[in-house]
């Protein structure tokens, strides 16, 4: 009999999840998995089924078909255990505006069954983490949007959940608040939390996430590590070379190196950037060794990666779902 340790049990395991609203198929055979202590992005166009999936994971929605498990607990049969291990932040401001920040957090801490003494410590910790300690006695109605989002995040953390489910946490935030929020999410990952984040801001997700799931029209288009998604779709990788100074002979000299198939300048050429395609049998190390013999002033040499935007556009369908 095999022993299952905590790390081998996925934080989220979604298998063949399907759900329909009034004849409209919102999700169709959705299957993906999120490993513990990772930051997982969940992206898709409007109406793709992101929020429905999130609601199924956080026990708000009983799906028509399929199985959802959170740390091995079935969402359908063991919802109370799931709720204790998750913290869900919806895509809208869901707050009691007449409460102060402290009262709001105290209420949720009590709802999760924390004793009074423990609540004090926890509230202090989450307010410190979200940098809201100075506003603990402020009424929520008087807080700015960014601060309300921080309080929402603090609320999600009061019962120390292992998994955070965040639906569009950065929507409507100004750039500064957005950057600060991303910093907090990185910190949470360092603390060992699993973060499942649904967002439209692809550039930030690309920097932030370890893995990603792309959903379109209720179907999973990709799910896996971010590195794999961002690799060039071509079989042979393309390399970018950047030089410190403009050299008129550089392109010709690189072309003459053994194993080089093509050398071209990018669309907006500066005279210092080159795209290099190597022959199938040539390794990057070998090519780099020969390149150094040319005595060019090299600033950077890297494998060209797709941007998440490009991957997203390649995988999803144009137009609005009908």
């Amino acid at each position, binding site marked *: 009999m095999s022993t299952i340790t905590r790390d081998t049990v996925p934080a989220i395991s979604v298998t063949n999840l399907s759900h329909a609203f009034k004849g409209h198929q919102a999700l169709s055979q959705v299957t993906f998995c999120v490993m513990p202590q990772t930051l997982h992005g969940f992206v898709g166009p409007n109406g793709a089924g992101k929020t429905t999936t999130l609601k199924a994971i956080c026990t*708000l929605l009983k799906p028509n078909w399929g199985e959802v498990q959170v740390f091995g607990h079935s969402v359908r049969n063991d919802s109370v255990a799931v709720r204790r291990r998750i913290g*869900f932040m919806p895509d*809208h401001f869901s707050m009691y505006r007449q409460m102060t920040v402290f009262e709001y957090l*105290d209420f949720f*801490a009590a*709802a999760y069954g924390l004793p009074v003494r423990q609540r004090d410590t926890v509230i202090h910790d989450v307010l410190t983490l979200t940098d809201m300690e100075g506003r603990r006695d*402020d009424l929520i109605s008087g807080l*700015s949007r960014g601060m309300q989002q921080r309080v929402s995040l603090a609320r999600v953390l009061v019962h120390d959940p292992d998994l955070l489910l965040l639906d569009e946490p950065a929507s409507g935030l100004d750039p500064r608040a957005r950057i600060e929020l991303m910093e907090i999410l990185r910190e949470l990952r360092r603390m060992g939390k699993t973060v499942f984040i649904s967002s439209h801001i692809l550039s930030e997700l690309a920097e932030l996430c370890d893995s990603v799931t792309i959903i379109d029209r209720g179907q999973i288009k990709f799910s896996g590590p971010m590195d794999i998604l961002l690799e060039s779709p071509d079989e042979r990788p393309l390399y970018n070379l950047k030089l410190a100074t403009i050299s008129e002979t550089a392109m010709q000299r690189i072309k003459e190196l053994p194993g080089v198939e093509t050398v071209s300048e990018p669309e907006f050429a500066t005279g210092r950037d080159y795209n290099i395609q190597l022959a199938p049998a040539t390794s990057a190390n070998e090519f780099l060794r020969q390149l150094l013999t040319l005595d060019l002033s090299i600033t950077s040499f890297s494998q060209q990666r797709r941007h998440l935007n490009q991957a997203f556009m390649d995988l999803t369908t144009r137009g609005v779902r009908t």
Partner: protein
Amino acid sequence: MISGVTTLFNWTLKMDSKSVYPHIVRAGFAGAMLFAISMSFTDVFGTGSMGLRFFELVCTLNVLIITVSGISYFVTAVTEEKDAGTYALLRLAGMNSLSITLGKSTSRLVSSLMLLVIQMPFTFLSITLGGVLWNQIVAAYLALAAWMILVANLALFCSVRCATSGRAAGLAATTIGFFVFLPRISSAFLGAIPPGVLSTGTIAFLGSIPAVCSKISVFDRLAEILGLTSGFTILGIDFSTGLTTISTASIKGEVLIVAGQFWSSLLTALVLFVISTVTLDFWSAPADTAGPSENKSVRRWSVGRCWNLSVAWKEFLFFTGGRTFAIAKFLAGGLVFAGFRMFQEMDGYSNGLALRGDYSWWAFLTFMMTLTAEVLLYSSGCLFDEVRQQTQSTLATVPISSVRILVEKFAGCAIALIPAIVWIFITLILSDGTIVRNCSATMVSSYLIMLGFASHLAALLSLYTRWAALPLTILLATPAFFCMAAPILGLTAVTSVFARSHNIEVTLLLSSIINVFWTWMFVLLPLQIWIRDRWIALSQQ
């Protein structure tokens, strides 16, 4: 301007036809007619003027529906634009204040007036049934139409004056309630104050209030048209100002088709419309102006730590007003009691702390009405508050079952009822026995059944409608009372027969328990299940 008005008028008519609520109002009117016919049918062997009874019932239900519509349907004319944040877009589209008030209010008024018009042929049936003439029917419908126009324009004014639909509904309800009860209050006040306390001018002013109200009172006018010497009553409560002029001619059905009430209502409505149009710009700030703020917004007092029953704590502290408000209510109850005690003293009865006769009865009724109002307000608001703040989904992810959340909400609101309940018991204890003599067991059990039913209905409706839960509850609970009484009494009778056949003595306590059980099982339990399911469905949205 004309194109703006017609565009808005057409658009509002289209939106109303797509919306569920206007159809509910129409169904309400149709139900009222059906109810009146069925009630008259039950009276067929008991009265000589069945037509009059039928028509009186139709008028009563119409007044009730028009008043409730004023608080719920007409009142959202402008606030729905403010709530949705589209008011500024209307102004950007080049619409002036007149176009907006005219376009938004008249479509609802016209569709509602049409409902009165289509009723008329059916009510001519009452002529055949006997006891009423055609001119009485026409005069009554004109009085009702004038009342509708007045209420619609009052609602429009509230809609213009307030930033949200909720506040507008509250203001409209308060104003209509104030108008209906003002003559009684001023007369009672004048009667209770000993001579020499108030100046002659004040007495003249207070004395003129019933006369002014009588000129536009639909209740007085309907009593006059129908020749009702007992006044115009709804559920046994006389809403007339007491100055109704019932002549021999009006008893015979010879009434003026258009009287002063019609013109004074139209004039008041016109004044309200003009004020609404003129002040529209001034009062039309966006509904939610409390945006981001760098200034600290703090509360100066603490509400203390959250209890283990966290939802009950939240409801008590943040929905019903908490300890401070509960203490204030208790003190206010004391003032009311002391007020009745003072009037009794002025009347020359000194009986220690105790109240006697009518004073104890009216003090008891005051506290009962307060309790009823509180129960209805809390039940119509406690679930809706979560919907309004979009917090159901957050609350649904805490490890507490939906049923427990609902029960805790009930508990939180129940705590807030303690001051009113305490004063009811104090009045009972310090009464000379009048209250016990006046209250029959049937009256008490009927009240409790209706309170339970109405509170459940209000909670349920608040999960479907935005602000109309309370007025709709009042509207639905009134006929429901008649519908529920018979089955409950029937079930009790069946139980009694069954008990007697098994030699079980049916005591007052046992019959009360049986009544409560039947009510819960067949009325409240289905509503409770419905509320729970609707609550869960809303949490998923």
